[in-house]
Structure formats: C-alpha cells, structure tokens
C-alpha cells in the first residue's frame, strides 16, 4: 500500500539497553538475539522490603504475569532489591517497558530492562558481600537497601576503631 514510515514508528522505551550480562553463557550476538525475543524483564532499585505481591500487583497491569523471581542475597538468602518478571507474551513485557519502567513502587523509582531469560543461579546478588554489586560501592545512605553501602560501612567501622 503505502510506505511504512520509520520516522513514525519510534518505540524507544522498548529498545535494548547497553547493559550485557557478563556471566551470560554465549556470545554477544546470541545474547542480543535472546534479549530481542525475551518475555522476561529485570527490575532494579527495589526496596529490600518490597514483596512479590506488590511486584505482581504493579506488573499485572500490563498483562498476565507468568512468574516473578525475587533476587536474593547470596549469603543471607533475603531479598536484596531486584527481581525478574516474566510475562506470557512479549507484547505484555513491552508494555511494562513503556509504562512501568521509571515509575514508583514503594515510593522508589524502579527501573526495568530486558533480560535474556532466567537461569538457576541468576537470582543471587553478585556483590562480594552477597547483595548486588551496586550496594557494595555506593556511598549514600538508603534505609530501604540496608543503609550505607558495604564498603562505606566497613570504612565507617574502621574509622571508628582508629579513632578510639
């Protein structure tokens, strides 16, 4: 019929980001292929206290959720502020990228990104202390994510010891 105008088909919220999982088994090309077909989203910046039910309530607005896997601290096995949300269809996941990414859950702006697919072991934080890597190095105080970052906590206690 008539031209499909690229200029009018912008759908930037559903584009794949720059992040690539360093532990992914396979090459870059395979990872990208999976990301482009995936029905699974990574969700970050959650509070440690956000429950699966809360996540479900929010993400179910975009379609039926197949499963939710809450991210856990590798050592303590408690929630450490991220999760995976898997939908039955890609279209529903795209809507989540368009309309839930960047909105609030438990008063925090959450972030969603495409994920190549859940595999056993990926539900654990990869930081040295057991939580997420970002919580190892951050300097700010975040009461919903265990207070100060791990490094900052250690620095504080070292400082305290040296002072006295």
């Amino acid at each position: 019929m008539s031209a499909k105008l690229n200029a009018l088909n912008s759908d930037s919220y559903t584009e794949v980001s720059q992040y690539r999982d360093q532990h992914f088994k396979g090459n870059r090309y395979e990872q990208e292929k999976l990301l482009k077909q995936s029905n699974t989203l990574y969700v970050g910046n959650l509070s440690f206290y956000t429950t699966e039910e809360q996540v479900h309530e929010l993400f179910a607005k975009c379609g039926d959720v197949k499963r939710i896997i809450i991210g856990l601290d590798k050592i303590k096995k408690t929630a450490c502020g991220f999760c995976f949300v898997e939908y039955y269809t890609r279209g529903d996941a795209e809507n989540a990228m368009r309309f839930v990414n960047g909105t609030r859950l438990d008063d925090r702006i959450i972030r969603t990104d495409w994920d190549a697919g859940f595999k056993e072991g990926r539900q654990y934080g990869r930081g040295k202390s057991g939580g997420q890597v970002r919580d190892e190095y951050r300097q700010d105080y975040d009461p919903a994510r265990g207070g100060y970052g791990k490094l900052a906590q250690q620095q504080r206690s070292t400082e305290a010891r040296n002072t006295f």
Partner: protein
Amino acid sequence: MSRRRHSDENDGGQAHKRRRTSEPIEIEDRLESLICRVGEKSTSSLESNLEGLAGVLEADLPNYKNKILRILCSVARLLPEKLTVYTTLVGLLNARNYNFGGEFVEAMIRQLKETLKNNLYNEAVYLVRFLSDLVNCHVIAAPSMVAMFENFISVTQEEDVPQVRLDWFVYVVLSCLPWVGKELYEKKDVEMDRLLSQIEGYLKRRVKTHVPMLQVWTAEKPHPQEEYLDCLWAQIQKLKKDRWQERHILRPYIAFDSVLCEALQHNLPPFTPPGHMPDAQYPMPRVIFRMFDYTDAPEGPVMPGSHSVERFVIEENLHCIIKTHWKERKTCAAQLLSYPGKNKIPLNYHIVEVIFAELFQLPSPPHIDVMYTSLLIELCKLQPGSLPQVLAQATEMLYMRLDTMNTSCIDRFIYQLVCSSFEADCLTLDLDKPKPKFVKEVLEKSMRLSYHQRIVDIVPATFSALIPADPIFTFKYEDESASTLPGYATSVTVSNAIKNRASNEEILAILKEVPNPNQEDDDDEGESFNPLKIDVFLQTLLHLAAKSFSHSFSALGKFHEILKTLTESDEGKLHILKVVYEVWRNHPQCDCFHGEERQLICEVSSCWNEPPLIFCRLFIWEILHSTIRKMNKHVQKIQKELEEAKEKLEKQQNKRRDSGEDEDMEKNSEDEEGQLEEQIERLQEKVESAQSEQKNLFLVIFQRFIMLLTEHLVRCETGSVDISTPWYKNCIERLQQVFLMHHVTIQQYMGTLENLLFTAELDHHILAVYQQFCALQL
C-alpha cells in the same frame, strides 16, 4: 582538507563504493524525515518551512516521485492531526507540477479503496478528510467532492445491511464539513442542502438501542452522554447557522492563497462505495464523553461549548495525537501540550477530558489502561503548576458522580486513582453505596501496591472503617483451641508428613482416616466427595505455603495429584474454591491468584452463592474475567497449533508437487503428509472441544447471572418494591461488563445464547442488556 580525506577513507578502499550505492536509501530516509518533521517546532515560520520543503520535493520529483507519493499518502493516513499542514504542501506541489497533483489524487483514491477493503475504517475517514481539505488548497474541484459525498450518502438507502455501515458513511461526510463545509456551500449550496436533509432523514430513523450500554453515566445531568452521530449532527447544524465560519482549524494554505488559486484543479474520479461484505467490521458506535464545560475552567480562555464544531475538532486532534504517540509517553505528553492554537483554549481541561474519555470508553479503551496513567503522570511533570490541579478537579468531580457511573468505568477509575495516589473524600459510610465502596476498593488496591501498616498510617481516622483488614492467612486448625474441631488431629499429622516430604500415597493414606460428614451409614452411592478431607488437606497445605504466591503455587502444583483425587466430582471442585476463599478471605489478591487454576475454571460461579456483599467486591470479578481470559488464551493456543500444522501440510504438499518423481522420496513425503493429516485431525478435535468448553463457560456464567437477577426481580415484584437497589445496579452492570469485555469471543456463540438463554420469555430488564449488546454490531 586532509582531515576530511581521512574520514572518507576510514573503511579503506570500499568506502567510496559503498557510499555510492547507499546514497538513494539515505536520500529516501532524508525525504521521509523532512516530510514527517515539517510543522514541528522550528526557528522559522511554518509557511517558510512549507515553502522550502515544496521546493526540495519539486527538485526531487524526477528521481524520487514514487517514494514521495508513498510518503505523502502515508502521512495523510497516519498523521491526521497535521492534516492541513500536508494538504498545504500538496497544494504547493500541485501548483508547481500539475501532473504530480493528479497522480497524488489517484494514489489517494487507490489507498482509500484498500483501506476500506481491509476494514481500516478509521484511517479511511482521515483519507477522505484529507481529500476534502484538498478542495481548500485548489487541488480538487469542489463539485467532484460533493459528488463523492452524494455517493456516500446514497448508501443510506441500502437495505438489509448493518446499521453501523450506513452510520459510517454518514459520519465520514459530516466529519469533513468543519474543514470544507464553507467552500462546498459557496460552490454548491443546493446540493449540500439536499445532502444535509437526507442525512437528517437518516438520523431520525436510525435505531439507538446501543446507547445505554455505552454511556459512562446513567444520569443526563450535568453533561448528557450523547450518541456520537447525534452530537456531530448538532455541531454541524450550529456551524451551518454560523454560516460555516470556523475559527479554530489552523489553515496554512490561507497564507498561500495567491499561489494556490492560480493552480489548476483536478476532478475526483467517480467513486462508488464498495458494497457490504459479510466479513466487514465497521467501527462500533460511541457515546461522546463530556465532563467539563465553560464553568469549570475558572480563568483564561473559555472552553468551546459541547455543540460547537471547535470542540469536535479539538477532541479529534487530541485523540489523533494520542493514537500516534501512545508508545512513548514523554513524547505524547509533549505533543499534547504543544497543540497549535493552545493559547485560545483551556488546553489542560481538554487534554484531561480526552484522556478520561478514552480510559472510560466502552466496551474498552483504545489502548491499555496503564498507558493513560503514565501519560497523566508525564503531563503533570511537564506542567506542574497547572495540570495537577485540573486532574484533582476531575477526580473530585468523578468521585461526586459515582452513584450514576457505570461499574466498568468505576473499576478503571479505581485503577487510575491508585496509580496516581490522589486523596479521596468520603461522605457516608453505607458500605453498599458506590462512594464508600469505591474508597474501600481504592484503599485495598493501594494496599496491594504497598502494605497494610502504610495504609493505616496515611488514612485519616474518619475513614478507618473502610481500611481493609490485615491480609493474614486464616488457618482453621491453627492452635490448641481448634483441637475440638473434627480433623484437627489429622491436620497435624498431614502437616508433619508434608514437612517430612512424605509421598502422595502416604498422605492419601493419612487422609483416609478422615470421616465423611456427608455419608449416611447405608449410603450406597460409592465415592461421594468428602468435604472434610478436602478442608483438612488444603488448609494445612496452604498454611504451610503461606509465605508468598510462589510458595502457594508450587505447593498446589506439587500436590496437584492429591487434589485431583479428592475432587473428581464437580461438587468437590466447588468445595476447593470455598476452602481457598475461606483461607485467604482477608487477602483478596491471593484469592485472585488461586482462582486461576484451570481445573477449577467452570466452578468460579460458586463464589456467587456467597452472601451478596461479597458479590460486590472487585476481586471476585477480577477472578471471573481472568478465568475467561485464560480460557480464551487456551483456545487461541490450540487454534494456532492447528494453523501451523495446516501450513506445514500445505508446504509439504507443494514441495512434493514441485520436487519431482523419485519413488523413495515420494513414499517418505506421503508418510509425512499422512502424519500431518492425522495431527491436523487431532488438533481439529482439540479445537472443537476447547471451543465447546469455552462456550460452556459463558453459558454457565450467563445462566448464573440470569438466575440471580430473576430471583431479585421476582422478589421485588411480589413485594412491590423498587428493583433498583445498589445490588441490582451492580449486578446488571457486571452482566453488561462480561458482554463488553469479551465481545469478540462472545460474538461466536450468539446463536446458542439466543436459543438457550436470552429468549423472549426472559424478564425484559435482563433481555434488554442482550439486545443492547446485539445492537452494537447491527
């Protein structure tokens, strides 16, 4: 100089060659971009941009004529909010190149025929409107446009065709008149008058049974919910009275009048509207949603009246902008807020009204609900000083009018509100009345998104009666005080067995000990179901797995077999639901989750035997609709498998036909084909059985509705009481909602529904809902 050469050669010798072959594509992309972007914010005026672009395109015509034609046809179809910008552009091109103008008109007619053939009626409206505005740009001669309109209106004389078909042709003509009415009247007033009186005649005799089903409010005040053709007719009447003076539409072609009136015009070829085809899907009728009028915008520009043509044009354009940009909420918000002519209208009010119009549209919103919420949030971010107030005003107004609001719309209002966390005010505490019920639902949904203590903290003391209960699990056999209950001992044993990972057989053996309160001593009927057994097992299991959804789900999955054994009868299934409901009584969200087990699908109606108050809770309906959706997905999945198998067979047959006569190969492909044919037969059966299950589900649901409603109506009649209780309003609207939410699927089973359930003997109150639904596609 050397730097330029360096970048030229960064790919080595190939670069030069590659660039030469990719140039045309780059130029085509550039053309696309130039055309799509014209009219956007720019340092130069729109007129000078159009002039410049016309020059560029004219120069490119010798090499890229077809591409330019296709791009222009596309923007006509896909960017209706910029209609007049593009008609001006075409006008300028036509003035410079008469042949191109003629080819463009022909291409548009071809495109119009295609869109009609493909059931793209909304886009066809934009194409016709584009053509009609080309009259204003001296590209098309007015008399030939009038002739096309006359052909459209002659469709209203057709018989034995769906009314929605006739509606569409009338709508197209009326909706072009704000743009071209003046010009056409100046040239052909006699013909136009005749056209309008034919339209008036049609509108008088058309049937409007569908209207009550589509209205957001049942009350006529303060804003009547008008049927869309009635509203448009009133607007055109008023425009005619004003001598076709229309002041809102941006018309760049006026600035070019001296150039354009020198151009030669083309005649539209005679256009016969395509005949009615049985698989045609005309647009459904609508009701125009209004919630604001000039009294609501306190300062600044006045809001155009509900029957002014300006109102129609503004709403059309805003709807088109949302349609173009809905996938990108920030862009969409920015585009809405930069609507041309925004200084003369209370734009924020129009935007909020249009968004709610879409959100509340029946049967369903044009886009997913959550889009509107995120769009409103973006709009508030861009206009923090003014838009939140308008939204708050809107929310308050909607709240005040809850009593007469359609139940489906209330549901959507709840979702929207909870996401944007606004405060609601509450006046009375009668829990059956819409307002307190609304607040209760809002608080409960808010709680799902956060947690109980938070809600207790933020809700003022006066509303504490409406705070939802703490969502804890109610376990019957919890502690020692329950030890007198029959089954308590077994519960403890089962609990330990599960914790120790006993096998299914072991657990069933333990449960065998549980006496059956239903069984008579000399009852010879074999294994009737044992409610106590189910109770003990399920309660214990769910208590152990109460930690989270995932735990509950895996528990139910793991012990699926045991549950099946205990519930082979329909009654058993019913009982499982009852137990699950008891257990998660205070945690409705979990109830929704469990309700989705496929094995319990047909028995969801058991919830309706519960006291009426429960019947009014939102989550019951969430379960129902979610169950229907699951069933639909199931049917679709098998249908897809069938389609794929059929395609495979066809491919296989083609391959055999084309490949040749090797005997061995022939035998192999024959075998494969045979297998595929078997598979197709099996899948065909599967599809039929799934569809039969689906039909049954709807039959059961509608049957229950009819039973409950009839009971109520009979009771009221014999007691001489008014039937319109809040319960009745809720129930009948929930029935409507089932029709509306699943209208596509239900259409398939209309015959059966009419024969078995919605017969003439039915009480007319209930039958009316069915008839209104049928009227949506007739």
